[in-house]
């Protein structure tokens, strides 16, 4: 059971811009270890003077994709780590990573569903690993993703979510845009609230498993609303990040 968690020198294999503020870094790991969807890696930067900064980033890729992992990093302007990741790190660079870590906010198809995934901003990253895991194994578990973004331009993994949601294999992707909506948008255009959660989760029934990831204010509102709607506390898992993984 217990094994040491060691830092390894990972190579940046690709960098893919998701939005104006989020980039996905694909890392090749010398010692790739299968992860569980929802887990994360710690990333450590060391300055020439020895100062170290460490941050925890969720894995966006599914465990079925071997040898590499995707970490999606949102740029926080006054952060210590994310501006460096966005402005300096290039393909071929080596960075220190350790993981996979986390045993609470995880989902495997063996855990079953129905599955309600609720994300705000880059909180979608660990949820995407769950969606990709489900898709890779062609799991029929009924799954709904409720994803809150400021505008359509801020949606991470937009194209892939659209494609996966259009397969009609039991995955529903529901967006809400809180600040700016595309022309002709007929969907949700407000912050997630209890009514929205009731509408989106209704078809999944009361025995659903919920995974909620985003800023604290969203996580608390969603968790409390789900309890109000009759979902058992033991079925709700949350992950908060501040204004976030700076």
């Amino acid at each position: 059971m217990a094994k040491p968690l060691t830092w390894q020198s990972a190579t940046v294999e690709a960098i893919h811009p998701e939005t104006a503020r989020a980039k996905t870094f694909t890392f090749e790991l010398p010692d790739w270890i299968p992860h569980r969807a929802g887990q994360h890696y710690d990333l450590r930067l060391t300055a020439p003077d020895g100062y170290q900064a460490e941050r925890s980033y969720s894995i966006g890729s599914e465990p079925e994709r071997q040898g590499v992992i995707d970490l999606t990093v949102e740029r926080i302007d006054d952060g210590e780590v994310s501006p460096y990741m966005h402005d300096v790190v290039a393909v071929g660079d080596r960075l220190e990573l350790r993981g996979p870590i986390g045993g609470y906010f995880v989902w495997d198809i063996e855990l079953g569903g129905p599955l309600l995934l609720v994300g705000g901003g880059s909180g979608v990253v660990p949820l995407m690993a769950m969606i990709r895991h489900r898709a890779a194994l062609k799991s029929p578990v009924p799954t709904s993703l409720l994803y809150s973004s400021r505008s359509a331009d801020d949606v991470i993994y937009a194209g892939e979510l659209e494609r996966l949601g259009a397969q009609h294999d039991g995955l529903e992707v529901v967006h809400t845009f809180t600040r700016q909506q595309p022309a002709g948008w007929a969907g949700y255009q407000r912050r997630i609230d209890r009514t929205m959660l009731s509408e989106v989760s209704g078809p999944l029934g009361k025995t659903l498993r919920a995974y909620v990831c985003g800023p604290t204010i969203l996580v608390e509102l969603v968790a409390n609303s789900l309890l109000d709607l009759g979902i058992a506390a033991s079925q709700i898992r949350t992950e908060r990040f501040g204004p976030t993984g700076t």
Partner: protein
Amino acid sequence: MSVITDDVNRSLMTDGNSVAGLLYDLFAREMTAEPTECAACGREGELGTLLAFTRAPGVVLRCPACDNAMLRVVRTASHTYIDARGAAYLRIAR
């Protein structure tokens, strides 16, 4: 804590999931799904659910129900200090 300091801390708050690596270092195993009990209010829940304050010389994990500081961890160059008086128990897998 003053009101302003408290607001800043709150805005940078995460949860126990974000310190899974630190906990793994201390206990040599995955800890976030392990239960613990708040010594102040009796709430039981997984370590992953505790509020985490990490932008400080150490890490503080607080009870999400009553805000009691359950676990404080400070690392120096040579040692790690753990103050767990706010937790009635911690469970560690064997």
